């Protein structure tokens, strides 16, 4: 593009840089402020003295959170949830998408399954019927209540199916003529050629399972079985830090406050997202192209 060198355009360009920088600052400053609060001592965090830099730096709040058994417990539940939830969801997605990527002539009944899937995608019967089904299946208060219901995502299946359909049919035909079974074709042709889509869906699935909190809130009764985000909600929204601070010794009392504990627990729960974030960024464009079809 040839540069426009007019005076008015140059001013606009500078304004553009300034406005974008401000937007960036507005997005990041609340997080930096919170980080500063989490490393400040009691007087500073309660008194609202902290802006963007810790005052009387201390790691006491982190020590309190990291010493709380319930925090570890919920972290462990979340890790379990991710391991089971993501692998089950990916397995179901791939296994369901592969047959559906065939034509109705090759796979009789494909159109019927497709309609069932589409109706499932577009209908949502509300949370009460959803809750009742999970209760009637006997999943209440078990980790499976958080893992099994989201495993079948019609939306992910359609994305995966679309990806499988873009793989040249000649490859499949050649393997079929050579006598390769459907299982072999799926594992030796389709999956290796769909790794970008599988990686995208896997990452988004990890983030989904890490961030989910509502299901934990209404399906799990036992406080020792809550996933991290649900437990965190009782701390940062319910404003109840007693589950975290009851273990802490009183000698540290001047170093942390409810507010700095909340800030610290929020930060600890963001860390995994921040670690995944650079990885996720590589898949944004794939993700949004896939994601833009969501109703």
């Amino acid at each position: 593009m040839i540069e426009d060198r007019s005076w008015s355009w140059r001013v606009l360009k500078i304004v553009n840089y300034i406005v974008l920088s401000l937007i960036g600052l507005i997005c990041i400053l609340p997080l930096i402020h919170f980080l500063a609060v989490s490393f400040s001592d009691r007087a500073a965090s309660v008194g609202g003295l902290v802006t963007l830099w810790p005052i009387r730096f201390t790691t006491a709040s982190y020590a309190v959170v990291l010493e709380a058994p319930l925090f570890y417990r919920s972290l462990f539940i979340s890790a379990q949830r991710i391991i089971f939830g993501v692998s089950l969801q990916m397995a179901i997605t791939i296994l369901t998408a592969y047959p559906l990527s065939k034509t109705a002539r090759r796979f009789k009944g494909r159109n019927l399954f497709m309609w069932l899937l589409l109706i499932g995608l577009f209908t949502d019967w509300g949370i009460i019927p959803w809750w009742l089904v999970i209760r009637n299946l006997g999943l209440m208060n078990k980790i499976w209540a958080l893992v099994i219901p989201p495993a079948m995502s019609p939306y992910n299946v359609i994305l995966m199916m679309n990806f499988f359909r873009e793989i040249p049919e000649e490859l499949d035909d050649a393997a079929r003529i050579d006598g390769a079974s459907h299982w072999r074709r799926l594992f030796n042709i389709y999956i290796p050629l769909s790794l970008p889509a599988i990686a995208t869906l896997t990452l988004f699935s990890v983030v989904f399972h890490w961030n989910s909190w509502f299901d934990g809130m209404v399906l799990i009764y036992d406080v020792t079985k809550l996933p991290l985000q649900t437990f965190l909600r009782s701390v940062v929204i319910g404003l109840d830090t007693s589950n975290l601070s009851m273990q802490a010794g009183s000698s540290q009392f001047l170093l942390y406050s409810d507010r700095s504990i909340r800030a610290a627990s929020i930060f600890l729960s963001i860390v995994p997202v921040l670690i995944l974030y650079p990885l996720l960024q590589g898949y944004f464009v794939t993700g949004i192209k896939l994601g833009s079809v969501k109703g």
Partner: protein
Amino acid sequence: MVAKNASLPSRLRKFSTYMARTLPLYIMILPGLVLLILFSYFPIYGVALAFQKFNPGLGVSKSPWVGLDNFRYLFTLPDFWRITRNTLIIAVSKTISLQICAVLLALMLNEIRSRLFKRSIQTIVYLPHFLSWVILGGLMLDLLGSTGMVNQMIRQLGEKPIIFLGSNDWFRPVLVVTYLWQEVGWSAIIYLAALTGIDPVLYEAANIDGASHLKQIQHVTLPGIRSTVLLVAILSLGSMLDAGFDQVLNLYNPVVYPTGDILDTYIYRAGLVSAQFSLATAVGLFRSIVRLILVAIGYWLADRYSDYRIF
């Protein structure tokens, strides 16, 4: 093809060779199909609650049927019209402001020549999309509280602090602004992708014709993303009843129910907190049906006017 009058044994043989080849496909689809039926079709029986005077002790099969009584009752409830109105107002203002801001952000980012600056801004503005509303809600409760950073700044300016989350004048604007804060960057990605898809030849031609940069934006850039904007607008029809359950549930409190209570939070409280299952299911069914109609209209329009299909 199978001949019309093929004998039974030969048809059986054809069928068994077909099955031998295709059986793996049926095995593969089975687990997904079972889960789909369990979680997308089985809940339909729960919808029966909307037409019953449901008693958890008796269960769905033995509870008395009351026809449309729950709906008649519902439509006389002032609460019901209030939450429907709140839902629509919040969802519409969120959707419209988000799309306008996302297009503007994409246009602004598109003018940046420095790759480093562009990438840094993108990295920062996409981040909030990946944080849950528990975390964001915790942040907002603190930031907007009476001793939070925002009110500290207001005090510095010599004004009275504002109770943002306890005021019916402020609650909806807070919902819209915090939603923008979370989603604007993410929503801009699709427009950025559309902007990079514009043929550079068009800009060169405009340059040769002596068009200024602003004229180029007006006559090349904007028309270039018009179809994407249109498509996103049409598809967002389906979210007109989606005012953001996660966000509202983590930010609201009884003081702001008059302006901030929405269908989803009402269903949650009625059903899972106060165990009025029939009422909650009736509200849920109303919401589901309206949503389904809106989604269907959206996809129909998208298919008709943008050649858009999900598969």
